[in-house]
């Protein structure tokens, strides 16, 4: 377990990794990665009952995480490496030929810590439900977590799985929505409004936890602890994690410009200047 301050420092290092990885690869998705950095860091180091030492593909007696919006690989890989799933130096291979760090998560390249491919949106909650049912069948009391982009909620399959989990009371599942209001073509309101998400999930018999500032480490820790406490009570739990796409670099925030676009080599130093070096060091 890390202190809140330690987690904040790790998150700063992860943000440095994200912008450096994507600029080096000349591609990738820094915006959503920066926005979910605090949550992913908290999950890897404090929230989840899981570790590189105990990782198994079948996840028996370990919490399992499925990141459904697979495009945020920069934050997935950085937090995994910083947690010890593989060497931090491997982050330099992101998106390069023959890498284990594929553009979107893959199990075909034997990267420890990944259990399922994602990238085609809308599928991770279904997978999480399957794993949650599998855990119940083998009397495994650990939890299944999923993470979704808010734009991803426009996929029909999401609502199939939301309906299923609510109707069947899959109460060992916590799904988190990265609620940043942005997607590739504009804001979610411009593209297709999500409406009242809280009411929508509640009407499907989910328990809703709201984290007002998903870029505040303490709020993330408190909110996820609350979510955990709400499991095992007959309902799936959804966390509405309000974040800002691009958080941590002022000129990347408040816009969808960096959803799938990377900083130029010229702009990278400007971003890094806002993300102080840490004791963990760059890859």
């Amino acid at each position, binding site marked *: 377990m890390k202190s809140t301050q330690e987690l904040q420092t790790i998150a700063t290092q992860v943000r440095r990794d994200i912008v450096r990885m994507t600029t080096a690869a000349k591609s990738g998705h820094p915006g959503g990665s920066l926005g979910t950095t605090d949550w992913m860091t908290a999950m890897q180091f404090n929230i989840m009952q899981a570790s590189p030492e105990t990782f198994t*593909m*079948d*996840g*028996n007696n370990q919490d*399992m995480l*499925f990141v459904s919006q697979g495009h945020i690989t920069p934050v997935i890989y950085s937090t995994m490496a910083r947690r010890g799933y593989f060497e931090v130096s491997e982050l330099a291979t992101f998106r390069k030929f023959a890498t284990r760090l594929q553009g979107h998560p*893959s*199990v*075909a390249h034997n990267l420890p810590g990944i*259990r*399922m*491919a*994602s*990238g*085609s949106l*809308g*599928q*991770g*909650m*279904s*997978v*999480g*439900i*399957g*794993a*949650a*049912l*599998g*855990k119940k*069948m*083998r009397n*495994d009391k650990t939890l*299944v977590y999923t993470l979704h982009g808010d734009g991803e909620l426009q996929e*029909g*399959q999401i609502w*199939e*799985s939301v*309906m*299923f989990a609510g*109707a069947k009371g899959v109460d060992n599942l916590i799904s988190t929505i990265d609620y940043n209001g942005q997607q590739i073509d504009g804001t979610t309101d411009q593209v297709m409004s999500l409406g009242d998400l809280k009411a929508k999930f509640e009407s499907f018999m989910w328990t809703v936890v709201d984290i007002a500032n998903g870029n505040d480490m303490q709020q993330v820790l408190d909110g996820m602890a609350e979510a955990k406490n709400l499991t095992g009570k007959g309902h799936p739990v959804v966390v509405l994690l309000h974040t800002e796409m691009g958080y941590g670099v002022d000129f990347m925030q408040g816009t969808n410009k960096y959803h799938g676009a990377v900083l130029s080599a010229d702009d990278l130093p400007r971003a890094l200047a806002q993300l102080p070096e840490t004791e963990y060091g760059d890859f």
Partner: protein
Amino acid sequence: MTTFENKSSKELRAGMGDGLVEVGKRNSDVVALSADVFGSVKMDAFKKAYPDRCVQCGIAEANMIGIAAGLSLCGKIPFVGGFAEFVTGRVYDQIRQVLAYSNKNVKICGSHAGISLGEDGATHQTMEDIALMKALPNMTVLVPCDYNQARQATIAAADYVGPMYIRLGRSKMPNFTPEDEPFVIGKAQHLIEGSDVSIFACGHLVWEALEAAKALEAEGIHAEVINIHTIKPLDTEAIIASARKTGAVVTCEEHLFNGGLGDSVAQTLALNCPTPMEYVAVNDKFGESGTPDEMLTNYGLRSKNIVEKVYAVLKRKC
């Protein structure tokens, strides 16, 4: 010439359902999922025997594929049952990402496949499913030919690790293979030895191929009939050996020309031993409503059509 007897016509989907009960008895990790069609795909006996090992997904096939993938992670062996079109074409991308690319141990059982589905019409009569499923890396594709073989294929599927598609029909069809003959995945089944022409068939068309061989024998033409019950991995050795022996090939399937058994055989021949070949299949069109018999007859999938194609290919034989 070896002859085959139709002991009694039975549904292939029922063979899968009965096989599933058997593997369920043997292996407590076997689980079944369906999207509101447990009964239609004949998985209801398994559901009755093992209610705690069934997941009723409601009419939501995409979610069902993901749930199956998640269950497989936990060491379960999910058998997913549905109408062939809705558990292949409708959910192709889901199968691609979480089953094939992620290489998960899930068995998709597609019932009501092919034009012999009949009255439901073209929306339900998939004739593209073999093409879709065989295109996916890691995927194994089985097309058993009768009830007994569908049952044996299901038993073999439970012992095989990896994503798999099993194609099954809805209608009662001749049941002629031995009840206790194990299904060997990837191994073509030699039914009749012959020297003049090789007939490679799969699914319901195997019986038609046997009937055709009988008719040809009466005309002095010795046809070899091989059941290609595994489209992928394809038994290329058996195909090449037979084609080299006879020098003429006819393929038979209840599928479109594009992407079916015929294309797999044609590719094998082109790369190894170019041989004159004819297709008995449906050429680039959808089906329609009618009885199963009317469908097979009007779409040219009968033994007489196979005989015609044999004569056509023999004319081209060098």
